[in-house]
């Protein structure tokens, strides 16, 4: 049986958002990974992701508005991590027109020491 080309890793997303699994490689749970993706992935790829997500942003945020933090499912969190990556890339595309902060410090210095932890109330 000939090997099929490796499909993009699938990710489980909430109902109605399954078509966003084409962005599975942008489901990045930590700030460290998201900043790395912003800096390391080719800028045109970031722009394509940004445009695709911008078109969905209203639907995504309307859905997220209905989910209390304590009731988030793994599918909701996958959508969240994809949205976080979108909001990371948004600065690059909307403000800078490039991946880095021009003439700025290395973004990697600004990874939160609380990365990956929930907010402390």
């Amino acid at each position, binding site marked *: 049986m000939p090997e099929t080309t490796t499909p993009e890793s699938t990710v489980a997303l909430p109902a109605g958002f399954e078509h966003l699994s084409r962005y599975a490689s942008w489901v990045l749970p930590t700030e460290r990974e998201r900043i790395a993706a912003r800096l390391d992935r080719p800028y045109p790829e970031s722009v394509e992701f940004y445009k695709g997500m911008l078109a969905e942003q209203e639907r995504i945020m309307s859905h*997220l*508005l209905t989910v*209390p*933090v304590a009731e988030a499912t793994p599918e909701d969190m996958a959508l969240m991590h994809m949205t976080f990556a979108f909001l990371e890339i*948004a600065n690059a595309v909307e403000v800078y027109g490039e991946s880095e902060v*021009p*003439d*700025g*410090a290395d973004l990697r210095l600004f990874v939160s020491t609380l990365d990956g932890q929930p907010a*402390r109330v």
Partner: protein
Amino acid sequence: MTDLDDRTLEALDAEFAAAPDPHRWIKKYPELGTGPISTDRFISEEFFERERKEVFAKSWLNVGSRHDFTGPNSFFVRDIKLLGVSLLVVQDENGKVQAFHNVCSHRGNKLIWEKDGACPKLFACRFHGWGYAHDGELKEVPDEEVFHFDKKDWGLVPVRTEVWNGFVFVNLDDDGTEDLHEYLGPLGEKLKDFPFDILSLFARFDVPERANWKVALDAQNEIYHVPMLAPLHRFLAGGAFSSNDEGYTRIHDFERLGRHSVYKSDSDDDFEETATGKVNSGVSPSFSELKLPLDVPFAFHVIFPNMVLAFFGNQLFTYNIWPEAVNQTTWEIRLHYPAATNLAEWALNEQAKNRFRDLLCEDQAGHEALQVGLESRARDSFVLGDQEIQIRAFHKNLDEQMERAENA
């Protein structure tokens, strides 16, 4: 005949009223002066030593907040390299907070090596197992009978500790008599009822900088740079801060508050958000609400000597600017937002954090470049304008503290 003759008196009055005095703030605080300021303060080892002994060793220093505790009966460790101390800050089962020198009384070992956590039954030294209760009392000495002392005299050494609105302060001057309430003075009064408890700590950055601590503080203590410095700053200058007709920022208010200060800025109505910002505003009206009781959307308080407590919309940001050497500093940044109740609010907090973080990233490179320029000694002084009066006030407070310490 001049142009003036063509205009009515009313028109002239209106023109004058519309253009506020460009030297408004120095007229309110003439004691701050208008002369240049010496660059020596940022590059001199001698001045740095004086700051260590006369300012940091004698002031109330913010070393953490309630967010650093994991609950009642928990601790965190704060190392203050500048003063050569490590502090064990303990919150007991009743919520009382006390800092101790993190030093075992036996032979001086660093007692607790973890950063934070729940309090163990006894704080135990890994060298010989000596154990201390949460109130610092020495409770356990293995092989106690071979010693020649009374345990009661060899507990952990406490450090003056007080808490204000959840912020933990210590004072390393054992002979000092001014308590935190007196120290915070009018600033403490102004903010005493602020609902800090609705804010959650969302992110913390510990950013190393090759710059004098005051370079970082001064650079943040004004908004003159906002329309010029960098893309995100310029974007925010389009309305997140108020500006005059020429596009230069204008602070809304400035006050000296004892040895502390505050400056504020309003926002402009015509601020144009980014595409993602507009979508978010459209999804829910509550997203645009100001949940914090602020009279204007930006207020920047400097708590002498090295703390900033500031608000920007629904964000509380604090800075603790830790000097380590005359040209080396750790800029500790904490971002707080009202705790998210649903995932959309969480995503908005994430976006606000990203945006503010990029803003600081734009700033940080500038700090290091400033230090290089100062160290070149190209000039021995620098100049400040009326929109930088906050910086004058800070340096005056610094000089006054050093004078107080020398005359004590």
